[in-house]
């Protein structure tokens, strides 16, 4: 690809796909993690089917950096903000990506981005507690961040993730619906992943990544 892509700056409303919500992406700091844990964490903890109901971002943020540094890799933690009814921006999504992670398709030994943690605020909470009438649909956007970073880093859009077991079948369906490829449960994993394949890994190869990223170019 000749020129680099930027992050998406508009996303459809979760309830009304014709309504576009302004989006901004920033690097995640301790303050962002503190805000999420304090203001959204207690609400999410009450939603039993959320895979992230126990995720303490204030702990995850330094921990992920440290663990990946020990593995000679870097994390890229991002915050996704959405415009609220008052015209200001509110944190609506969080993600921690890993750079130069082993590509999940062992048929092509290569590096990729890996989406380690990814969370979108509950739309009902954004509406009831934070004055956001149109919470954005963020799953595709958060995955796009990894694809764009991968492309811009010379990794051709390759990315992967593991659907948290706590997310059950619904989370698997979500990633499939987003257009990611499902790594069959019988497939081998790269040795450095150091885990048996439980059938919950998803990935994007170069061509899928380009199709997914291209579909959002009008929103960048």
């Amino acid at each position: 690809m000749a020129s680099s892509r930027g992050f998406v700056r508009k996303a459809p409303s979760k309830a009304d796909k014709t309504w576009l919500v302004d989006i901004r992406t920033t690097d995640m700091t301790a303050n962002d993690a503190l805000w999420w844990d304090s203001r959204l964490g207690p609400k999410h903890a009450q939603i039993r089917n959320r895979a992230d109901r126990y995720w303490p971002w204030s702990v995850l943020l330094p921990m992920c950096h440290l663990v990946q540094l020990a593995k000679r890799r870097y994390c890229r933690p991002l915050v996704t903000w959405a415009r609220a009814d008052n015209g200001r921006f509110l944190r609506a999504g969080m993600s921690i990506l890993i750079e130069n992670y082993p590509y999940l398709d062992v048929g092509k030994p290569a590096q990729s981005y890996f989406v380690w943690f990814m969370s979108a605020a509950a739309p009902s909470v954004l509406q009831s507690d934070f004055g956001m009438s149109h919470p954005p649909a963020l799953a595709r956007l958060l995955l796009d961040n990894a694809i764009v970073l991968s492309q811009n880093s010379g990794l051709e859009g390759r990315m992967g993730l593991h659907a948290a077991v706590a997310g059950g079948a619904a989370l698997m369906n979500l990633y499939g619906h987003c257009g990611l490829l499902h790594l069959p449960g019988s497939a081998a994993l790269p040795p450095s992943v150091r885990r048996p394949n439980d059938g919950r890994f998803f990935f994007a190869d170069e061509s899928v990544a380009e199709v997914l990223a291209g579909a959002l170019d009008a929103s960048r």
Partner: protein
Amino acid sequence: MSKFMQLDAKAPATLGAVVEAVTRLSTLSEAKILEIVSAGKIAELFPYTPPGRAVPADTMADEELLEASALPLQREQREALIHSSLPAARKRRASSKR
């Protein structure tokens, strides 16, 4: 493992706990760590409690947001990003040298 409250390299007990926690976690796969975190059990392996601080404002104006670069980060940018993952302690130390 002793509980560490801040990542202060000058405190041997703290440093020991950090080394032990990171070493143990780095032997686990990312998917396994995700599973542990999702089960609400990460404190058993990484007993870090950030110091209490004031919660930031809910919202920010567009011009107040420093948008992230979608390009690969330079070394200085990476270092700043890692530093920013820790609460104020690092900043206070740096400013005290002025």
